[in-house]
């Protein structure tokens, strides 16, 4: 029977054996890990930005009285939240070139990075739209009335009065979403992109040492810590007008 103590000592021995290779990464490994980290970061940052912009539009559609805008946004959220992100990534990566070939007779290769940007942005937009809609609806109705009574149009009231008041309430869920995105970027290994996790996985398989995963974990934690700290600070700063 293996007791926890035994497991612990065996782990220690393994770390000791591997010491020469793992404690110091060689330059090529270091560069590969850095490149993987950049891919991960790029996808997360691009998709949170485009997701937020698109999310605002969908959120406005959801609260609009216009039936077409309302049902289109409902449908969008229903689809992108209701199917796996991995599936959406596959559809964009595999299906679009085939549909293109079938309809035009021409082949075209899709850039996997662009695919990742599109899939992650569209998916993030669905989640962010719901977050933004809830934030807008949480603003007291008297604010819109006061803005209207002062002669503002719906658009002016939204952009100057209502939406700025949602910023503080949006920071925490946005940070949440960004952290989720950062970790979900590991899905792009399925469309031939080398993100952080994929990079260390390759190293681990090539050398037989699992300890490369620890480097990845450390980098993920480092990045998410930065996000957490920055978002916490931003939230405090934006709440300056509250008592």
């Amino acid at each position, binding site marked *: 029977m293996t007791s926890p103590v035994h497991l612990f000592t065996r782990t220690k021995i393994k770390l000791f054996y591997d010491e020469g290779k793992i404690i110091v990464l060689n330059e090529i490994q270091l560069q590969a890990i850095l490149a993987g980290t950049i891919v991960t970061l790029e996808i997360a940052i691009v998709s949170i930005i485009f997701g937020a912009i698109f999310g605002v539009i969908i959120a406005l559609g959801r609260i609009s009285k216009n039936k077409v805008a309302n049902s289109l946004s409902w449908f969008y959220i229903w689809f992108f939240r209701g199917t796996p992100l991995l599936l959406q990534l596959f559809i964009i990566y595999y299906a679009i070139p085939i549909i293109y070939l079938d309809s035009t007779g021409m082949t075209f290769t899709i850039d996997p990075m662009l695919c990742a940007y599109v899939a992650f942005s569209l998916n993030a937009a669905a989640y962010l739209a719901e977050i933004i809609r809830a934030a807008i609806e949480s603003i*007291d109705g*008297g*604010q819109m*009335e*006061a*803005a*209207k*009574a*002062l*002669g*503002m*149009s719906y658009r*002016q009231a939204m952009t*100057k*009065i209502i939406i*700025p*008041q949602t910023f503080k309430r949006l920071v925490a869920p946005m940070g949440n979403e960004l952290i989720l995105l950062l970790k979900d970027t590991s899905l792009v290994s399925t469309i031939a992109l080398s993100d952080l996790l994929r990079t260390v996985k390759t190293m681990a398989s090539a050398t037989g040492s699992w300890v490369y995963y620890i480097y990845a974990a450390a980098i993920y934690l480092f990045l998410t810590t930065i996000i957490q700290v920055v978002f916490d600070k931003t939230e405090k700063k934006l709440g*300056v*007008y*509250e*008592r």
Partner: protein
Amino acid sequence: MSMVKLVDVRKSFGDNEVLKGINLEIESGEVVCIIGASGSGKSTMLRCLNHLERITDGEVYIQGELTDKREKNKDLMKIDPVKVQALCAELGMVFQNFNLFPHLTVIQNITVAPSIVKKVDKGVIEKTALELLEMVGLSDKKDEYPSRLSGGQQQRVAIARALAMEPMIMMFDEPTSALDPELVGEVLATMRKLAEEGMTMIIVTHEIGFAREVADRVIFMDEGVICEQGTPEEVLLNPKEERTKTFLNKIL
């Protein structure tokens, strides 16, 4: 020419008819106080004037111009929304709960609407805002956020904010009802000052003493109709209608 006019105005929320045929005309310079029990339709009537609520039936005029004409909840006339918005902006409104914009400082609360709606030059509107703050006695609070002000101070800022749009009429929807008793006086004093300057005012209030003092006309509303109206002496001291007497006995 009347400043505002309501013709046979009805308003229903679902099956609940809140206004049951209101006819009302208010002249320039008049101070009109509207009294009545809660649920009598006083606030709804104000809100119908500036399109915060759409009427179900009837006609609404602001400065002689038609802003709403409806029957059975359907528009009878297509009226240019830009024109309606401009006319409604002639009616300044002060709310029971102040509704200041919490993310803006006191001075920004006052300047935001003139600068984006009327595109008034920044220097000009800031000067006006400072004068208005002086008038309501809050010059020293110009860079505070509303959350740091007392209820009475917030309501005075709200009055200054409405005045910054240079409205022809000021409407007050129970402006002192949400205030602690010791803060009511400062708001009423500000309103009194406005009345003395000749501002046309429509005030929904429970402050009978104030109504007696400043009103040119008092309107008593009950169950969605104007039950009695006249000078403060007529309505408040010698009411003719039984319902007015009952109401006054209850609250005095």
